[in-house]
């Protein structure tokens, strides 16, 4: 949770006398239609302060669409999105297309979010595992560096909610573990909520609090191990992947918790069968 200087009067939304709404963003019964097809069909989702929620699902499952609805970049055709008043969001899109005719250094890219001095920016870069690349042109960054720079820009505004769309693409295996550790630390230190999209399940599952499995609708939801044991998940992603997940969670979660997977179904509202056409 955030810390306050005692000498300053505490005002505004963080007034401890009025407990802050723990729900950062939520969607209820979200429907999105495109080209006569339901991309999203009555999806419920919620991210609370201090939790890491991972959105998984095959290609075309509507993961990015759901995130864009939650961010307010798209309007739903049905249902309702609620963001906590004054919510600051840090967002890293899946890919960053930059116009080559626009010369942009890393420093200028970062300070588009807000003004910041060099020392602050360097500390931020160090945090996401980058050296002093402030003077480098954005067009000269590798895929992994680009994702780290995007994460740095998202963190610059000290967000209450981090939304990361495929943050691991272009990052090598060691870098992925590092980035996940970093996301975990940010959650611990700031109390921010984190919503991650991924179809790269291995590390995601090991580090996440709740998993939401999407295929146009919510197939299953719950804690990683519960979801991994869900037959719907196994059908969608294959038994082998479910085994991988179980392996990662091994030791954290005792074996005799089979009843949890029924809870998972309840948490997800009314889970429908996923189509078996996985990617």
């Amino acid at each position, binding site marked *: 949770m955030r810390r306050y200087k005692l000498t300053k009067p505490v005002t505004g939304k963080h007034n401890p006398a009025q407990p802050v709404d723990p729900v950062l963003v939520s969607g209820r019964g979200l429907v999105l239609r495109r080209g006569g097809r339901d991309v999203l069909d009555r999806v419920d989702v919620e991210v609370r302060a201090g939790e890491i929620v991972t959105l998984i699902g095959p290609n075309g499952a509507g993961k990015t669409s759901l995130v864009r609805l939650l961010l*307010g970049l798209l309007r739903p055709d049905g249902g309702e999105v609620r963001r906590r008043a004054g919510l600051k969001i840090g967002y890293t*899109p899946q890919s960053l297309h930059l*116009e080559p005719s*626009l010369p942009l*250094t890393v420093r200028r890219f970062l300070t588009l*979010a807000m003004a910041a001095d060099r020392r602050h920016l360097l500390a931020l870069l160090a945090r996401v595992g980058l050296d002093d690349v402030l003077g480098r042109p954005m067009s000269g960054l590798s895929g992994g560096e680009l994702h780290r720079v995007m994460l740095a820009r998202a963190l610059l505004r000290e967000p209450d909610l981090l939304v990361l769309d495929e943050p691991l693409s272009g990052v090598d295996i060691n870098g992925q573990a590092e980035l996940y550790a970093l996301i975990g630390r940010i959650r611990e230190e700031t109390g921010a909520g984190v919503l991650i999209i991924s179809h790269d399940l291995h590390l995601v599952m090991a580090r996440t609090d709740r998993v939401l499995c999407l295929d146009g609708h919510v197939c299953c939801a719950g804690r990683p191990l519960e979801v991994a044991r869900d037959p719907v998940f196994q059908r969608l992603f294959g038994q082998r992947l479910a085994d991988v997940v179980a392996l990662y969670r091994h030791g954290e979660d005792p074996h005799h918790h089979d009843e949890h997977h029924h809870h998972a179904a309840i948490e997800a509202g009314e889970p429908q069968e996923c189509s078996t056409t996985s990617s």
Partner: protein
Amino acid sequence: MLDDFLLRAFLAGLCLALAAGPLGAFVVWRRMAYLGETLANAGLLGVALGLFLHLPMTLTIPAFTVLLAMLLLLVERRGVLPLDTVLGILAHGSLALGLVILAFMEQVRFDLMSYLFGDVLAISRADLALAAGTTALVAVVTGLFWRPLLSMTVHADLAAVEGIRVERMRLVLTLLLALVIAVGMRLVGILLVVSLLVIPAGAARRLARTPEAMAAMAAAIGCAAIAAGLAGSVLWDLPAGPAVVVAAAGLFAATLALAPRAR
């Protein structure tokens, strides 16, 4: 001193080049070069209707460029067709409509060349004041909204998530463009105003490492083209408008030689 027609032409040209530099950078970054042409053609429709209805062109030209700009923003948000197709329809449609209306007026002898290239050497004091006012307005508004305008241009989604009103910024930029084109085409002609938007900014790209530097260099290159073009007009009796465009294109070619590798 200010009744010297050459000095007035030079100052008005500098004003336009200063306004067109930063706006031109946005035109290049946002791939709106064709928008300039379309707005200019809408201005021609404004000329035609001004003559037809006996209204002052100082009003009808901006009225039509602004109207078309708003129409384009609507179409861009709702439409199925790609933007360049819509621009093509509107550009040629309004140009043709303007010419048809002009043909109805037998008593008016219309010289299309003068609207393509304008008559930069026939600028009055009032025209000069208009150019200066427009430049001041563009400078103030772009200065005030520089960061949100730039952020929206770099990545609209990130800008929106960070709290920037993207639609509003798009409107600000398009209206500024419509205004500069309207004023510019009245003073220096369609071809010159679009050239001053696109060519200096294109030339500045290879020399600049930051967006701010690119905008500033575009303004400077535009000023240099004005100076060189008018000098050529005086020394060798070249037509002033085309001479400025040729000078700008020459400067662009020079940057290709100076900085062969894009950064």
